[in-house]
């Protein structure tokens, strides 16, 4: 939304962001994308289209990939939200994207990686194509992205999405709901 809402319409929204509980004041209809970038200063999540067509703004809400440009912040009340920053640069997918040509300019990459996280471990190429069909890349032609996802699926120590936790099973399953 371009128009700034009246301050008196702001409400307190409490949710878990990258493993940490946060409470912030925002108009309930502000886009999650803008709250993440402007209020939480997490600028890894990008705006590519503002219409849910490009996937650059993909984040996980309760383990499901969503377009943050289409989510009113009030809808994440009580939810677990994960952004690219949760991966801390250390997720196997991130290394694989760099090493296998899955990223060039980088603008699609945070959304692409989060959508790939939501696929769960070792997706087939077909599963990757379907799971990433909502993420557009203008640079790579997608082959490097699929190579990266395949390479990242090779057995390595699994990592948690949330910083500070012990390494453990990935919680970003395609339909997984983070319960804790």
């Amino acid at each position, binding site marked *: 939304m371009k128009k700034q809402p009246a301050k008196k319409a702001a409400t307190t929204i409490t949710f878990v962001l990258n493993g940490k509980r946060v409470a912030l004041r925002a108009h309930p209809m502000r886009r999650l994308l803008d709250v993440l970038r402007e209020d939480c200063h997490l600028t890894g999540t990008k705006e590519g289209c503002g219409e*849910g067509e490009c*996937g650059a703004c993909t984040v996980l809400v309760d383990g499901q990939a*969503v*377009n943050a440009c289409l989510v009113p912040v*009030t809808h994440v009340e009580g939810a677990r939200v994960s952004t690219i920053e949760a991966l801390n640069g250390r997720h196997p997918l991130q290394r694989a994207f760099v090493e296998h040509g899955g990223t060039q300019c980088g603008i699609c990459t945070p959304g692409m990686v989060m959508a790939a996280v939501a696929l769960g471990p070792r997706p087939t190429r077909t599963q990757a194509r*379907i799971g990433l069909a*909502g993420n557009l890349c203008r640079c790579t032609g997608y082959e490097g992205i699929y190579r990266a996802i395949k390479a990242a699926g090779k057995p390595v120590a699994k990592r948690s999405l949330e910083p500070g936790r012990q390494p453990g099973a990935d919680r970003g399953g395609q339909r997984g709901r983070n319960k804790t």
Partner: protein
Amino acid sequence: MVPLAGCTDIYVGLNAGAPVHTRYLDLWRLDELRGIHRAHDVLRIGALTTYTDIIASRLVGRHLPMLVAAAHEIGAVQVQNRGTIGGNIANGSPAGDTLPVLAAADAIVELQSRDGVRKVRVTDFFTGYRTSVMRGDELITAVEIPAVDGMQFFRKVGTRAAQSISKVVVAGVRAAQPRVSFGSVAPTVVRVPLTERALANGASMSEAQRILQTEIAPIDDIRSTAAYRRRVAAGLLAQFWSSTS
């Protein structure tokens, strides 16, 4: 007052600078509007059921697989995780991908207000382009689909396999009385009763396709042309018939 569910459509307009309604009614937390159940041969799908829920549902997979097929082709995973069937109906786009499925299945829309419950057949629900019989004080609470008696068919034709608004979309049920419904070829989703009757009476496909042209009214728009849509609709009718025999 604008009711909100998954919000996958409303922010497209808001992000483009469309006028900001000041009052929204957020339905997202109303879990009683979720859930898929089957009783007495009727499949009941709550209005807040997402496309991901539909895809994951064994009940829908068994009893209304053409709805699963439609859900797979709506947007992409990010949209499927948020968009709802109630929203698809309420939005009332002539290109809504669940609408031909619901129309071909003779589904019933359940509306609730302070006056009580009202049920309207999907085929009676839409009165014109993005307009319906729904009153301003009503909410869609569920859609109910009676048992479907034959093989189900769904095809969506668009620019690519995901993230496309359809150029033509079709759903059909092959039975002694076949039922066929098209989207994106008229101001609303349409059934094609004369075509259905022709097929039921053993008309040739070319005759049925000729009759079909009298029952659809596609236009030229940014996605396609009327002529192309007519041609594709005819082809889809043939595909429906040959792939369900």
